[in-house]
């Protein structure tokens, strides 16, 4: 399988052709290649999502590894880290290996399963972290996301034990005692709307505790979906002292605020909740200055009946794989805070680095894996259900105008998206099978 890209713009602005054969970039143009005309398009290294919910096994009515992978490819991603809150939970070698092999078989993206920190996500006992790390899935990121590892002793042990296997704990920071029944950011709006508040201190206090624990035991910590200005301050403080903490922000927290909840439309219900304007601006600035390391989608599919109901009864979450790059472009690129080179870093090389995923450290270099995506930054479209390719449609951007469009995505040297359309599953699966074993 050979691919030739003509006239693409690299993130730094240089115009170039790209050649790939047998899954890697090569120096000379191969013969018999599929040619992609990339005039006016930006070539980004394949995007890597450190935080996705693929829902399989157990919640296949919302999403499967196949449909989630397709949604990811459509968004320009070539690798996703699949969160552990499936059913059964990804807390054993068997389940993580199953998820990984499903991803490999379908072939749209590289699926890296995340292991649960505690058995069943119950927050009581550590799961078999060693077994998962040494399984074929070679898990390196561990998270109880959806839930917080709130017990201080257990979090300490988790940080230490996971570091034993060279991994990182990704914490969903939410003190449960301060957020019982919480529905929306706590503040003037939540009191007006009569919705139980989710105070920002419930996130900030856990991050503050966790960075001090990480410092004390000398282990890496990753903070999921940072959502408040106060959390940014804590992370900045920790980094200044050399604490090995990394942080992610979702596209929706870079663009949307709690005001959208006024009509009680549960498409805007998410955990952590949408916050204020000041928080959005603090998060953008933090992404620009490196306090926040990466963008991660927290793609969270839910069936329509879980969103077409009263706010209190609705599920938390938004799908985000297909819209991620557009939203990032609208929030931080078109506003001049980040360049496309920065985007390549925060959405590809740095998440791969944090998740210990090989092959993304030298993008476009000859010999490295051919994972890339071609974006038309000048396009504008009204985001619609037809832009969603997963099983669920709970997107907060429906009807909103967004910039940018993915024109092509190439994973391990074979296309998964061409001319803005997904390549069919059989072709992709066959190409994946024909490729060499990758890690």
């Amino acid at each position, binding site marked *: 399988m050979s691919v030739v890209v003509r006239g693409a713009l690299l993130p730094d602005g240089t115009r170039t052709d790209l050649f790939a054969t047998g899954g890697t970039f090569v120096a000379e143009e191969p013969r018999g290649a599929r040619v992609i005309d990339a005039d006016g398009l930006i070539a980004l290294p394949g995007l890597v999502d450190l935080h996705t919910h693929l829902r399989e096994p157990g919640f296949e009515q919302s999403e499967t590894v196949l449909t989630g992978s397709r949604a990811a490819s459509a968004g320009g991603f070539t690798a996703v880290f699949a969160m552990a809150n499936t059913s059964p939970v990804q807390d054993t070698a068997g389940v993580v290996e199953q998820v990984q092999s499903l991803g490999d078989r379908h072939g749209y993206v590289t699926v890296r399963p995340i292991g649960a920190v505690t058995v069943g996500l119950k927050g009581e006992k550590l799961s078999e972290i060693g077994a998962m790390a040494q399984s074929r899935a070679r898990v390196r990121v561990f998270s109880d996301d959806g839930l917080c590892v709130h017990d201080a002793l257990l979090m300490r042990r988790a940080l230490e034990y996971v570091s034993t296997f060279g991994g990182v704990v990704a914490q969903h920071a939410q003190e449960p005692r301060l957020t*019982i029944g919480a529905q929306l950011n*706590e*503040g*003037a709006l*939540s*009191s*007006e*709307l*009569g*919705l*139980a*508040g989710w*105070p920002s201190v419930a996130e900030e206090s856990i991050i503050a505790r966790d960075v001090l624990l990480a410092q004390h035991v000398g282990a890496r910590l990753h903070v999921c979906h940072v959502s408040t200005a106060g959390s940014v301050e804590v992370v900045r403080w920790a980094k200044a002292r050399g604490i090995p903490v990394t942080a992610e922000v979702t596209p929706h927290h870079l663009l949307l605020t709690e005001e959208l909840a006024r*009509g*009680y*439309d*549960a498409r805007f219900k998410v955990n952590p909740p949408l916050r204020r304007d000041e928080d959005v601006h603090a998060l953008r600035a933090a992404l620009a200055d490196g306090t926040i390391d990466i963008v991660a989608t927290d793609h969270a599919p839910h069936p329509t*009946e879980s969103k*077409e*109901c*009263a*706010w*209190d*009864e609705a599920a938390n979450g938004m799908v985000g794989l297909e819209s991620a790059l557009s939203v990032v472009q609208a929030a931080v690129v078109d506003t001049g805070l980040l360049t496309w080179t920065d985007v390549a870093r925060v959405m590809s090389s740095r998440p791969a680095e944090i998740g210990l995923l090989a092959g993304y450290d030298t993008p476009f270099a000859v010999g490295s894996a051919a994972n890339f995506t071609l974006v038309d930054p000048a396009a504008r479209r009204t985001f619609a259900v037809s832009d969603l390719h997963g099983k669920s449609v709970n997107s907060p951007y429906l009807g909103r105008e967004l910039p940018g469009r993915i024109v092509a995505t190439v994973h391990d040297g074979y296309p998964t998206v061409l001319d803005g359309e997904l390549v069919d599953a059989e072709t992709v699966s066959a190409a994946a099978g024909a490729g060499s074993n990758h890690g």
Partner: protein
Amino acid sequence: MRHLLSTADLSRDEAIALLDIAEDMADVANREVKKLPTLRGRTVVNLFFEDSTRTRVSFEVAAKRLSADVINFSAKGSSVSKGESLKDTAQTLAAMGADAVVIRHGASGAPRVLADSGWIDAGIVNAGDGTHEHPTQALLDAFTMRRRLHGAASRGKGLDGVRVTIIGDILHSRVARSNVWLLSTLGASVSLVAPATLLPVDTTAWPVTVSYDLDAALGLSPDVVMMLRIQAERMNAAFFPSAREYSRQWGLDDDRVARLPADTMVMHPGPMNRGLEISAGAADSARSTVLEQVANGVSIRMAVLYHLLAGSES
């Protein structure tokens, strides 16, 4: 007016118009034939996901006095309690031809979701949603205040300059919220009294003054003292240490009542916890408007249903 979801949506003129229509409706209760043919042939559905006999009966009487047909869908024993979704219930009611739906729901915003959803083309009246609003309660409270203050000369008047103090679990009270918006729209000045645990964390945008000290607040001689019901569950969630302490600090006991000016009204949306937030003496005194509030509830709800249903479908 297509729906009544929140008192914050009412302008001063709209609010006074509703109170004035309620004056006429109140007169109907004194006639031998307590009925008007105005809503004949219309169907009003009481969709109560939360139990509430009082409010439901009040709406039922109001609808029947206007000759409307009433259907009651209440939580227990019906499909709504078996987990039928709001959407399916709404579509069933639409298929049955409901012209208005009076909805009480445990989730804040449920009436708004229903009104905006397109599942049913009926006027929606919010009879209480979660901790958000209870607009007809605020309207009947305002009506009661106006009647007590101006008697037969109430028509056309607002509540300008009236000082109202609301005491109790403001944080969880939909009655408090609806009253705050409506009373300020009508020109009253509103003061809230509660421990900090029972106040929303940010009320800077609310048109109220806030205090923790009941005695100080009563010392300012308010025209109206409105007591809110305290729920025992709040004690278990550490909002206050004990019923005794709550009552001592924020309860309207006989001593506090005695120190109020002679004309000050004592109001309570009901049901009352006698001995907790309000003493029996206060509840049964001449200042207490509790029974009038119940009677006025029917008149207000008649006015609301008339306003929503009698006009052209536009």
